């Protein structure tokens, strides 16, 4: 059987090479011509707790995660226990032969909560399982095939060949044995796998050779032992389409650089820090015109308070400046955000949501921060919020937010989430030439002829021409206090009324000027009887579910809200006005976007599909939920729970 789409999972303790295995697998599939979508799940832990990478490959582009696994490659006993029920009938499980006898109750890293839930499942199924082997016997009844590979024996063969006496030095290659086993079982061409290994281990020939040897030994072992037993053949349609493979943080970084960001501040936090590190690795920038090399300064600050204020200080000099953070860090930025709002500073915050409140789920997904981003900091001041829905959007949006910040002279918050930050995906190569840079009313030396400059001059639009610190012939003042046009402290009620209004009305201008196409993505038949509304990473899952439902005769359209502030409310109201079933899909408890839409348009949702278990919304579960709604079988509120 040749499958069009294949779902593979690499699973093991943190520090055992799960990410490397996933990277090799993904690249090997890409080099063969397949598209890849990979979801990464890990604990807030350095070594030892469970992690996995769930990867879908297909000849077609993929935008979301699904629930099932076709081939589960495990590095340890815990991975078998954790994912045993996810393997699809006809699928397979690769295990270390030495793990089979492991007693489930001896696995220390299984939490009490997991054990309780697991016991409940066993009881429901009427299964008694004490060891890993008992579990595998159980799923075999569902036509799941199991492949026990003696990892240590195969490793010994590798050790003998390279004359390495200490086997323990090679155990970190268990991940490559799992890969060799995988590719052997699905009969995949070895050339792209070898290229992936060579690429990932870079210019370390000895490591490359060791890993290639381990790959081949396990590949041969599988062929010898299991032959074509698995029955799936992973075939790739050759393609010459130029493609890239990247995660969300990289897309944001690339967009920032093209968009002209020249100073980035950050305090280490998951999952945002990857972006800053990637920027720092690439701090020297090539330019296309005959300009000197550019550069970006990446500053690791003492905290997020310093991060936002340093970025604002830099923005005052005319440089495009940004800071990148997650929920806890953004909480600390609240005061600085208000200062930037009050002083009309174009500063950009890339906000990677994760499971909250408080430290919450530091490495897990969540979409509970929309209201906070909209309202953080005391008082009222204008800001713009743009939410990316997929990795490619992250790239173009990361550049575009600087245009909003400079045109309207206000902080702009670019919301991303963990599912976008840490998932990776193959795309047709991005096109930087689609990006435009608009700097708004930015004055320079030639615009000054000795007259007094008023930084906060009252204007019809509310926008006062801006000038960078250091411009010859001009000085200006800022203050977090209310101020007059010059920027000096002023508590007079008339000034207060005028200056406040001047600031606030810039948001009306932004609302009027920014085209709806930049703020909303609309998908599907405008006359469909049901409309799904969502924001952020559920986009991919919703589009996939919609397509599947369309094929089954259910017509649904989809409003992806990219700019909740200012919300293009007439547009949203008009689209929603036509829908008989209005459905919100969000990764939070209170349906925050639904509340905002109701506040802005008066329109209430009919159905709520919500999830807050720390895992992204999958295409399968949103499909199930929408189908129930379309069949009139759904309750008003459905809570999604998939994820391990």
């Amino acid at each position, binding site marked *: 059987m040749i499958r069009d789409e294949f779902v593979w999972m690499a699973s093991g303790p943190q520090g055992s090479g799960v990410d490397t295995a996933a990277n090799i697998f993904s690249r090997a599939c*890409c080099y063969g011509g397949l598209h890849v979508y990979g979801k990464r799940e890990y604990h807030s832990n350095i070594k030892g707790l469970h992690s996995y990478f769930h990867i879908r490959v297909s000849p077609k582009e993929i935008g979301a995660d699904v629930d099932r696994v076709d081939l589960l490659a495990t590095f340890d006993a815990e991975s078998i226990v954790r994912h045993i029920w996810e393997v699809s009938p006809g699928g397979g499980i690769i295990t270390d032969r030495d793990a089979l006898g492991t007693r489930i109750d001896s696995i220390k890293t299984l939490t009490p909560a997991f054990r309780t839930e697991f016991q409940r499942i066993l009881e429901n199924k009427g299964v008694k399982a004490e060891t890993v082997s008992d579990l595998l016997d159980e799923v075999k009844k569902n036509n799941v095939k199991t492949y026990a590979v003696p990892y240590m024996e195969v490793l010994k063969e590798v050790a003998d060949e390279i004359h390495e006496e200490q086997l323990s030095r090679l155990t970190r290659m268990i991940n490559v044995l799992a890969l060799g086993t995988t590719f052997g079982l699905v009969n995949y061409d070895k050339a792209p796998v070898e290229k992936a290994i060579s690429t990932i281990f870079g210019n370390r020939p000895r490591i490359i050779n060791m890993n290639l040897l381990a790959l081949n030994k396990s590949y041969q072992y599988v062929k010898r032992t299991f032959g074509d037993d698995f029955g799936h053949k992973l075939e790739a349609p050759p*393609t010459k389409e130029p*493609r890239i493979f990247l995660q969300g943080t990289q897309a944001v970084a690339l967009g920032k650089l093209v968009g002209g960001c020249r100073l980035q501040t950050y305090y280490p936090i998951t999952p945002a820090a990857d972006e800053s590190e990637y920027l720092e690795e690439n701090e020297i920038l090539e330019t*296309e015109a005959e300009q000197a*090399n550019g550069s970006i300064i990446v500053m690791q600050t003492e905290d997020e308070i310093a991060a936002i204020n340093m970025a604002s200080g830099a923005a005052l*000099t005319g440089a495009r400046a940004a800071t990148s953070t997650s929920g806890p860090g953004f909480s600390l930025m609240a005061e600085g955000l208000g200062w930037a709002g009050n002083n009309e500073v174009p500063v950009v915050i890339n906000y990677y949501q994760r499971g909250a409140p408080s430290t919450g789920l530091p490495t897990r997904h969540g979409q509970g921060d929309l209201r906070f981003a909209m309202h953080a900091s005391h008082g009222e001041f204008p800001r713009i919020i743009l939410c990316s829905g997929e990795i490619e959007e992250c790239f173009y949006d990361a550049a575009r937010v600087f245009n909003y910040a400079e045109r309207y002279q206000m902080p702009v918050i670019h919301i991303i989430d963990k599912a976008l930050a840490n998932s990776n995906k193959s795309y047709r190569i991005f096109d930087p030439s689609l990006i435009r840079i608009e700097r708004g009313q930015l004055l320079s030396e030639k615009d000054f002829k000795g007259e007094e400059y008023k930084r906060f001059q009252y204007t019809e639009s509310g926008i006062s021409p801006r000038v960078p*610190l*250091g411009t010859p012939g001009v000085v200006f003042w800022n203050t977090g206090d209310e101020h007059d046009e010059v920027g000096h402290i002023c508590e007079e009620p008339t000034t207060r009324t005028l200056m406040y209004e001047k600031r606030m009305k810039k948001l009306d201008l932004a609302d009027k000027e920014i085209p709806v196409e930049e703020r909303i993505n609309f998908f599907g038949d405008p006359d469909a009887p049901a409309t799904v509304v969502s924001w952020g990473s559920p986009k991919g899952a919703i589009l996939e579910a919609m397509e599947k439902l369309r094929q089954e005769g259910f017509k649904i359209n989809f409003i992806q809200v990219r700019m909740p502030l200012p919300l293009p409310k007439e547009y949203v109201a008009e689209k929603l006005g036509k829908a008989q079933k209005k459905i919100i899909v969000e990764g939070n408890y209170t349906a925050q976007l639904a509340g905002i839409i109701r506040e802005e348009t008066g329109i209430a949702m009919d159905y709520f599909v919500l999830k807050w278990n720390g895992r992204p919304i999958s295409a399968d579960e949103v499909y199930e939920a929408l189908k129930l709604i379309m069949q009139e079988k759904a309750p008003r509120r459905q809570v999604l729970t998939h994820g391990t």
Partner: protein
Amino acid sequence: MALKMSDYRTTYFADWCPGCGDFGILNALQMAFTELQLPPHKTVIFSGIGCSGKTPHCIKVNGIHTLHGRTLPFAIGAKLANPELEVIAAGGDGDGLGIGAGHFVNTGRRNIDITYLIHDNRVYGLTKGQASPTLEAGLKTKAIPKPNLNAAINPVALALAAGYTFIARSYAYDVRHLKETIKKGIQHNGLALVIIQQPCPTYNDINTKEWYSGEDRADPTTGKPVPRLYKLEETGYDGVVHNPDEAFEKYLAALTKAQEWDDKIPIGVFYQNEFVPTYKDRISKRIPNYLENPPAKQIICDEECRPITSVRKMLEELTVTGLD
């Protein structure tokens, strides 16, 4: 044409209490700027919150009045993005050593070429006289209901430990000394700290002008007050590191001097070490054209608004196009 002191004045009304040390600091700053002929457009004063926070509004150079305790991050951001700017940060003792203490310490790690003035009056004036981080335990200034329970921070010792490469103290009512000290701080190549002792005539009834000048203690022979403040320069003390080998010795000497208070309060330069690489030196090692083409000067798009930054190489590294 040379700039006069009046060129550094604004018409903004300085609303400090009569007799406030901030007037002396303002004067000293304007005098120092005049003597150094700092171009107003290239000069920026960042300030925090409190009485000292209003200083920039009174001086005709760029003035950025920021948040409580956050003076340094703002100042650093601007200096990093445009190293040509002459950046001065000014804030109170509560601002820099209380709410902003984390920034105070971490700024020391960077040796960035800015000058930081701490207006130290040992109270929170604008909120009506609470104890600041430099007020010793057991003291009860007039506005606090009970004697202070918290011990005082020693800002000179803290700055030494944090890595400041110029540490000086001066006095708000000795405008000449203060002006000279500020000038030295500005001319120092690296991070300069000037701690300014400043009476708060309204709320600090202990460390008053009279207290600093020793009017409570007369010399038994002359009958004249014995001032508490004395000038380090006049005692032969030399805090300047003249060659890298003597850096530690000078550091220890400064740390010892930093312990003096109450009866004898040293003013002047405690420590100066220009052998520590500045932040711009460190960046320039990684980004060779940083000083010629810093963030604020970089051109990022052409006249048609098209970006000119090429990420071609980064995209190549991410490329996974099929094999031949």
